[in-house]
């Protein structure tokens, strides 16, 4: 046995499961933090600034944030690389399709690959829009509340964000349950609870994230 985890299809799935769960944990925290926008600009901006001071004085200013960013970047790269390599293997293993087509698997299951690509592109846009401000006309760093309101005052900002969050919900629904199977924690008795957690997590994340653009659109946040 000289093979490593990375050499095995089961091992690569393990990498996907672990990196996916890391990102999922981050998203839950991220979503909860976003909800502070409903308490006004003072509280939201203060929260955004606090994120830069986590761990002080043990950690230097913004170090905690950069540690999180590095971990997330590693998780995204590991997740996407293993997904790409596993997909290549899967497509090669079934080169010719059946002549007689029939609907297969649930919508969430069938859209994992495209959903993942959509989410990958969204992450790039999201960082350029609200972290660096590269694609954000009139971006002012240090004023996150105003930047968020600006983004969701444009039709394309809303469309991109809402489509991506729906993709996130579907991706989470199949992804969380699948991660449990890959890590071997699923069982017949636990299956119902795992599926419930996956569905609740998908719903809470999607609704929580989408509530921000909806809040801006309805004038609740301005």
């Amino acid at each position, binding site marked *: 046995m000289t093979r490593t985890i990375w050499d095995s299809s089961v091992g690569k799935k393990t990498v996907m499961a672990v990196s996916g769960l890391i990102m999922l944990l981050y998203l839950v925290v991220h979503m909860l933090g976003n909800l502070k926008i409903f308490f006004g600009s003072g509280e939201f901006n203060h929260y955004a600034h606090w994120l830069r001071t986590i761990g002080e004085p043990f950690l230097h200013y913004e170090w905690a944030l950069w540690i999180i960013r590095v971990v997330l970047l590693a998780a995204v790269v590991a997740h996407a690389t293993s997904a790409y390599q596993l997909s290549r293997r*899967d497509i*090669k293993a079934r080169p010719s399709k059946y*002549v007689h087509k*029939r609907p297969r698997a649930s919508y969430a299951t069938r859209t994992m690959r495209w959903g993942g690509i959509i989410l990958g592109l969204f992450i790039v846009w999201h960082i350029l829009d609200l972290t660096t401000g590269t694609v954000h006309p009139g971006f002012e760093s240090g004023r996150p509340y105003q930047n968020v309101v600006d983004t969701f005052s444009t039709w394309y900002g809303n469309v991109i964000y809402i489509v991506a969050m729906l993709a996130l919900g579907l991706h989470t629904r199949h992804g969380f*349950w*699948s991660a449990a199977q890959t890590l*071997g924690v699923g069982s*017949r008795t636990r299956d119902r609870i795992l599926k419930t957690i996956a569905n609740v997590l998908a719903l809470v994340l999607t609704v929580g994230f989408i509530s921000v653009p909806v809040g801006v659109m309805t004038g609740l946040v301005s």
Partner: protein
Amino acid sequence: MKLTLRVWRQKNADADGAMSTYEVDGISSDMSFLEMLDTLNEELILKGEDPVAFDHDCREGICGACSLVINGDAHGPERTTTCQLHMRSFKDGDTIDIEPWRASAFPVVKDLVVDRSAFDRIIQAGGYITAPTGTAPEAHATPVPKPDADFAFEHAECIGCGACVAACPNGAAMLFTSAKINHLNVLPQGAPERESRVLDMVAQMDDEGFGGCTLTGECATACPKGIPLMSITNMNKEWLRATRKAGKR
């Protein structure tokens, strides 16, 4: 019953295949699906044409030789093997599409016959126990807890037909491999090779060019023996356990 059949015809492994259409008449609803194909083949032979090649052996649903993807379903619309599928599952005037298992690890030999020897090589990699052969040992010499015996038996039901591979959109052999691993890994007789079995069989499965698992559940839906999807979960658990142990050694 009168039926229209659209059957995959392919001269040999290297030739290009295509669907050919045939009409069959006088089919009884009590015939098995394979008997219906026998009827077609008798007509083809009388006409001097090449009969349709398909795999079959026991015709009792226990050997795993028969295959066929019927109207897009491995082993057809009922949850059983093709040999135990009866024509009463179809209506007079139906058009039925019949295709071989599709996976790059299962190359077509001729018409509906595919080469499933990749499964044999997965078994050779670890689907056995090291026990001295000879007279059968006393049955009570090795106690096996009832839940373990039931678990082992559930997985031992796998007949290795390959319907899981045929149904999987990734052409993965996870359900077959997991059934064989779980069957032996839970028993005291299989304990000495518990780790090497799962590592070697999964490695062989990868080497044969099968795809990976995306947990669509198609395999367990198609399985004529009802091997559950949780079988794969358990194999993943065994694989992670064995990998951790191998790392420590």
